[in-house]
């Protein structure tokens, strides 16, 4: 039964471009999909290890910039006589490089996270994102600064010499992002239902106890940060080759806040939560666009976030799940706990 529902859901997602002819709506869905991937990645940190990382957009941006730079190529005048020239690489390799770079920075932040927790960790992560933003803004030789990196090549597939298709259109980008999102969803789902994921949940729930039974706190914090950062980097790479421009504003704190709102609203510490939150807040701005100016929209989001924390602290998914269970009985196995309850 559950498999049937999952399959129906996946088929539905795959069928959308077949009957949805309005490209603009497809564009909205693609953007929402990219942010959903970012939200899924943030959820691993925020929801499962309990680390409120408010610099998550840094990983997204690092993925985007790395992928863009590797696919565009760049040169750096290191000394007057020597210029380092980096030739462009194929987009797929650039995408992987972006994921790796984001993962690497995740490793660094994970190491710091072990030293400082709570309010300190939050501020360190904010600072990290801000430093990265200022570097992207000022290292004009590499990043073009506020002028942004333009004309970033889109993804494409090719059989050498025979056939090639570059993803200028919405359709292939939609499928690409859908596939990546599904992969990320499965990664998080498998992880959190495994020994490794339980170690992360354990250190969220009670770090002292977890370490006393042999959970290596540093290792799992770093692991979670690396995987989370790498997924955020993947989202950044998808973004960069779809929008085909990346500028320092990508590091704005407001995007982290968007991801946090998605996760918290959907239900942190649940696998479906960030998907629900991501789609909701990916699509809502476009629906509201007609009725409310952006500042009014943001006022609504801010108030909404407060309301969720006050009245629905676990988020939509756990609330709906428990309502469903109460109504239709049949408790399920697995990590059948009100996840996120704290």
């Amino acid at each position: 039964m559950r498999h049937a529902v999952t399959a129906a859901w996946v088929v539905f997602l795959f069928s959308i471009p077949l009957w949805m002819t309005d490209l603009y709506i497809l564009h909205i869905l693609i953007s929402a999909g990219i942010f959903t991937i970012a939200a899924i990645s943030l959820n691993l940190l925020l929801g499962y290890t309990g680390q409120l990382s408010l610099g998550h957009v840094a990983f997204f941006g690092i993925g985007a910039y790395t992928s863009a730079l590797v696919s565009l190529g760049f040169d750096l005048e290191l000394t007057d006589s020597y210029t380092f020239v980096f030739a462009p690489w194929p987009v797929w390799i650039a995408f992987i490089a972006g994921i790796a770079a984001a993962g690497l920075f995740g490793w660094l932040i994970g190491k710091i996270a072990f030293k400082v927790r709570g309010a300190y960790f939050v501020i360190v992560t904010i600072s990290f994102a801000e430093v990265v933003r200022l570097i992207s803004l000022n290292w004009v030789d590499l990043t073009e600064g506020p002028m942004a990196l333009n004309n970033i090549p889109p993804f494409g597939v090719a059989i050498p010499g025979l056939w090639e298709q570059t993803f200028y259109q919405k359709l292939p980008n939609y499928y690409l992002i859908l596939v990546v999102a599904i992969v990320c969803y499965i990664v998080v789902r498998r992880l959190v239902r495994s020994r490794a994921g339980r170690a992360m949940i354990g250190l969220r729930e009670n770090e002292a106890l977890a370490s006393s039974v042999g959970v290596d706190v540093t290792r799992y914090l770093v692991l979670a940060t690396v995987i989370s950062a790498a997924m955020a980097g993947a989202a950044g790479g998808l973004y960069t080759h779809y929008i085909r421009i990346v500028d320092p504003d990508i590091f704005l704190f407001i995007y982290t806040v968007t991801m946090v709102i998605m996760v918290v609203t959907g239900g942190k510490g649940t696998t479906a939560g960030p998907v629900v939150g991501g789609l909701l807040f990916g699509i809502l701005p476009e629906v509201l666009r007609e009725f409310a100016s952006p500042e009014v929209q943001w006022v609504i989001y801010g108030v909404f976030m407060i309301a969720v924390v006050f009245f629905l602290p676990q988020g939509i998914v756990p609330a709906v799940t428990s309502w469903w269970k109460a109504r239709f009985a049949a408790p399920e196995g697995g990590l059948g706990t009100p996840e996120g309850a704290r």
Partner: protein
Amino acid sequence: MTDTALSVEGLTVHFGGLVAVSDVDFVVREGEIASLIGPNGAGKTTAFNVITGFLQASAGSVRYRGASLDGLRPNDVADLGVVRTFQKTSLFSGLSVIDNMLIGLHRRGRGRVWEILLALPRIKAEERDLRMQAAAILEQVGLSHRGGELASDLPYGEQRLLEVAIALAARPSLLLLDEPASGMNPSETQDFMNRVSAIRDQGTTIFLVEHDMRVVMGISDRVIVLNQGIILAEGTPEEIRRHPEVIRAYLGGAAADA
């Protein structure tokens, strides 16, 4: 039975200018139930914290089965087979009892991250195995019927049992219990003592910090008395009961009652 399992030598802990534990030596032997007692602030929990890597000693050394525990982190200590419980009830309280157990079984799993992500068959087999082990330990402490419930929903006595079960899941060869019976009613306490003895009989050495003298005197093979950071006395419950300094400093009427 007389092999030394845990040995503590010259242990000293300062907090700022305060001396919590001062030049303390003691051993715990393989297969015994040893108790560490003393009035509040005597340094019992501090000693536990040092042994299990939660606190850095100012001086002195701790060895377990020949390996030094100095400077190890709690999870490294657990890897050597030394596992503890905490003075204040300490559970993964937002999770179900069975999930509490599965986290406790962390050390028994072997699955690596890439294997997990690929969902290899051996990971699935391991999961099934871990769940069976969890059920077995719950059975052992008498919590089988609670598996699906939220840990925080359990009555107090069962929460304390669950703590022990979680520690047992980490497969300790030395189990450190920090005031496990505090807050239990007499029948819960009696039941608890039986279970601790049973655990020892299955080959786990037990080192206990406890205030309840019925527990200490009832199950200990040996008792170590700590007072104001130094060892006051050491011996069998019978010897401790009669030790004049212990009676004066600490036990008073309680010893006579027991």
